[in-house]
């Protein structure tokens, strides 16, 4: 019975830890567009491995959330005027929140 409880605990813990989230708020300064595309990909240097998982269009001041497995990701944001943002993010079991501040290049 004791071992069974441990087993249940381990299963529950692993289930809980298989999902986390990555949320953010988008800041677009003057000179940028009113909307940005926020991209979530695997954090890989090699182009062929940098798989795009999800992307969403977010207006200035808007918010978003990606639900992810723990791991290493890149959050990129870009707009039509050439404004850009890139951050590598290591997601563990706890949700991560970012301020996505785009910069005019």
């Amino acid at each position, binding site marked *: 019975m004791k071992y069974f409880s441990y087993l249940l605990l381990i299963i529950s813990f692993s289930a809980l830890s*298989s*999902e*986390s989230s990555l*949320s953010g708020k988008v800041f677009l300064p003057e000179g940028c567009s009113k909307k940005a*595309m926020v*991209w*979530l*990909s*695997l954090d890989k240097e090699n*182009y*062929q491995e*940098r*798989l*795009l*998982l*999800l*992307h*969403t*269009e*977010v*207006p*200035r*001041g*808007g*918010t*978003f*959330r*990606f*639900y*992810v*497995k723990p791991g290493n990701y890149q959050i*990129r944001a*870009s707009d*039509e005027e050439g404004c850009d943002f890139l951050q590598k993010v290591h997601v563990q079991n706890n949700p991560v929140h970012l301020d996505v501040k785009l910069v005019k290049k």
Partner: protein
Amino acid sequence: MKGFLISFLLLIMTAEASEESACKGNTIKTWTQNVGYSCVTRFNPIVQDPYCDYSSSSGTLLFQNFPGPLFQKDIMPWWGYQGDLYYPNLKFPGAWEKDKVAAKYYPGEGEIFAAKPNVYVNTVHENFKFNFKFISSRKIHFLATTPLLDKELKWSGKIVEKDKFELEEVYYDYLFYDLRLPRSSMQFTNGLCTTREGAIEWMMKDLVEMKYPAISLQDFEEHWRVKIPDYPFFCIYPQYNRELDAIIPIEIDKEQTSLIRSLYVLVPHRIAPGTEEMQEIPFPTENPSQYRPGSKIQRETMFREWGVAFLGD
């Protein structure tokens, strides 16, 4: 006499082949199990090459049956060019392997990956407050949302300018979520099979039938012309309120309000449907339009949601 018979048979065969392979005028070729191949009316007229409109030339008709020029007007939106620079799979709905979404990269459960259900609204009211709440008793396996949902899985705000959402003083043209759904809750009887282009046109025509607003049609076409992978054929299995309200129920806390829902499950095929031996998903056998939500009854506030979904591996 023998020669005449052979010529006659060849003539019949040629006529049948040409009927099967080409649709005339403003129609596209579709396929269903019951009817086989048939031609249905296009949503948009055929787009001609703007730089060389050879078909309307008043000159010689000598080349009228030749294929068009190789040049094609590129219709990618701005984010398409940027995404292409950074990601090898931009023109897929997500991570993609073996003709399906690669499920191993995503959390949660469910064999169906519903990408981009977008929710649009039209109302007769000014500054109309609303709550849009996911009320499923089962766990909802979200993949993304814009904007953030609150702890009760709810978007709260007001509708401004008749058709925009305002949440925490930010205007959104639409509310957005991605999620995984169980395959067992989807229907795979009603639908049709057609080419990639035909699939996009059919879905848009379906949305027009349900009176989706112009901005939602524009967003749909812009997004899915890029994100539907380049397979020659697709079978489309539309999921309407009948399926979606049961598996992902939503509560909107206002009277005189309705929500019309449409999620198209697309199954890609490398060769023309009907010639493959084994099918993981059976070909559709029924006309999908009979279950399309009615749009004749207009409410004061109409929410409309579209999405496209793919199988996961």
